[in-house]
């Protein structure tokens, strides 16, 4: 192993932080979704890295779960976004403030 475990973890951490920054910062809801995906992939990477270095399959199994859930989530989320877009003609998250007050 030329690259040690810490390298993978750092990479995953960086990816995760980029994802968080995207969720918190961006205005386009689709970009936010992509950032969420990025966060989930970072987590997947962490799991796989540990699975490889601890020589246990548990991590990889968990990744499958995460992938399934992510897929389902994307389906539902996009359906909601589409419904909102049909009414409001916008994907700007700051315009979705009906819960104000």
């Amino acid at each position: 192993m030329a690259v040690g475990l810490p390298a993978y973890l750092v990479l995953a951490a960086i990816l995760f932080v980029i994802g968080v920054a995207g969720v918190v910062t961006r205005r386009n809801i689709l970009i936010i979704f992509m950032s969420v995906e990025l966060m989930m992939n970072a987590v997947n990477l962490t799991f796989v890295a540990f699975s490889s270095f601890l020589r246990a399959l548990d991590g990889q199994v968990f990744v499958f779960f995460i992938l399934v859930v992510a897929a389902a989530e994307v389906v539902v989320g996009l359906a909601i976004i589409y419904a909102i877009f049909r009414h409001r003609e916008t994907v700007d998250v700051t315009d979705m403030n009906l819960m104000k007050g």
Partner: protein
Amino acid sequence: MPDLIWLVPGFPLLGFLVLVFGGRRMPRRAAGAVACAAAGLALVYALGALAFLLRQPADARRVTVALAPWIRAGNLDVSWGFLLDPLSAVMILVVTGVGFLIHVYSVGYMGDDRDYPRFFAYLNLFMACMLMLVLADNYLVMFLGWEGVGLCSYLLIGFWYEKQSASDAGKKAFIVNRVGDAGFLLALFLIFHTFGSLDFDSVFGQAVTRLDPGGLVAVLIALGLFVGATGKSAQLPLYVWLPDAMEGPTPVSALIHAATMVTAGVYMVARSSALFDMAPGVLLLVAVVGALTAVFAATIACVQNDIKRVVAYSTISQLGYMFLGCGVGAYASAVFHLGTHAFFKALLFLGAGSVIHALGGEQDIRKMGQLRKKLPITRATFLLASLANAGIVPLAGFWSKDEILAAAFGGHHYLLWALGSAGALLTAFYMFRLYYTVFEGKDHVDRHAAHHVHESPPVMAYPLIALAVGACGVGIIFGFPPDHGLYHRFVAPAFGGAAVHEIGTGTTVGLALVATIIALAGIALARAWYRTGAHPAPSRVAERYRGLYTTLVNKYWVDEAYDAAVVEPIRRGSVRLWKAFDEAIVDGMVNRVGDWVQGWAAGLGRFQTGSVPTYVLSFLVGAVAVLGYFLLAR
């Protein structure tokens, strides 16, 4: 038979219940019939009660019937008890007799009224309460009836409640009564405290033993009772509600404010004679107040122009005579005057009602005149009633009023006798001023109304005639010879044979002669001044003594004085309490709680920005915090 005495108030009470719940669902005439039947049945039973009493030996005419226990709390043991003795028998006969006739009269008088069933319901309720008052065998049941008649008075005075003046008059009557009732209640508390019971038998039986004659307790009790009587029977200073009570329908004025309710005070004082005898100072006060009221009200009556007001002030005046009678110890004579007065005063009111009805609602005597041809029956009965009121022998009023004045004279209360005689002069004067102005004098009737003037229908005329017979005969049949006639011999045992100052026959005849001369003088003056309606004297005298005249017309400004001294301060105090306490403090507290909650809501609501990125940020912060806790703090 005596066990059924409760039916006497029971029938009108039943009538009331029937009319209250079913009055609107039955045809109009049926409602009137129900009420008259209830009153009539009460009268029948009252006569039966009298017959029963007469069958007993003279010293055993006293029956107490306890129906059921009412209050049993600690020492207080009060039952629904009734007392039938000569005094209560006389009272129930007066109430049911005059009451029944007025019920019949009302069928005609109120015939076109929209609220016909309600009227008869109230009238029946009134009869029930009044009968309960006079048949009670303890002070609490009497007080219940006392309050009940006060309530009915309010309901009936304000019968046409949509009229502001009528509803105001009803309130005034009730409130002024209540002031008197406060005195009555204080007396009741003191009675219970002193005697441990409210039953007449217990209280009157122990009056001599438990009360020091003239002592503080006796005086306070008698005073409290008299204050109550002052309110209910419209004496100085609590008489102000009675003239205003003329806003009610005329049968109401006849029944309640002439014959029955206002006499409740007199009955109560007479019934409590044992207590009053223990406080001679208060008795003197009773006599003085009575005499003063008699003259005071008579002076006002001389210048009033509303036919009902004149009769109202006359009532106040005659009630004064009754209290004068009680005050000088002539309780039986006072109650006798109560009875005779019921006949002629009710007749005067019903006659006035007949006139008002004929003229389509006119009550101002300056718009009447020369009605004797068109209203013969009304005129004849009104004339008889006026003569009776003025105390002309052999009509009813003479016998009873004369007994009272003779008792005052015989008891050496010469000043009171003089006041009473002065009142008699004024009585004769104002009664005939009224009679001549309405039935003779100049015809000032409104041309339009004059076409509809007609005598009353039989249903109204027959009661007038019946009452006239009473006003003529009751006095001489039951009151001759004075102090020893049928009435006195019947009623004396009820007063424990209290000694009335005996005066010689010569003095009696002499006093009667003086009284008759005085009355005739009053009538003569009124005849001279008012018979033609064109005599200059009345207006000239009014001009010459303008100050006095204005004072009388304005009723000595007593109402205005009360308004300024009592009503306005209370009203202003109430407004202040309302603004400073109810609005500022009570509402303030409630509102402040609400505002506080709203403050929290607004403050916490600031978290609800609706901005999704903000929510995401809070997730992040929360997640970091939890994570931080688990990684660092543990």
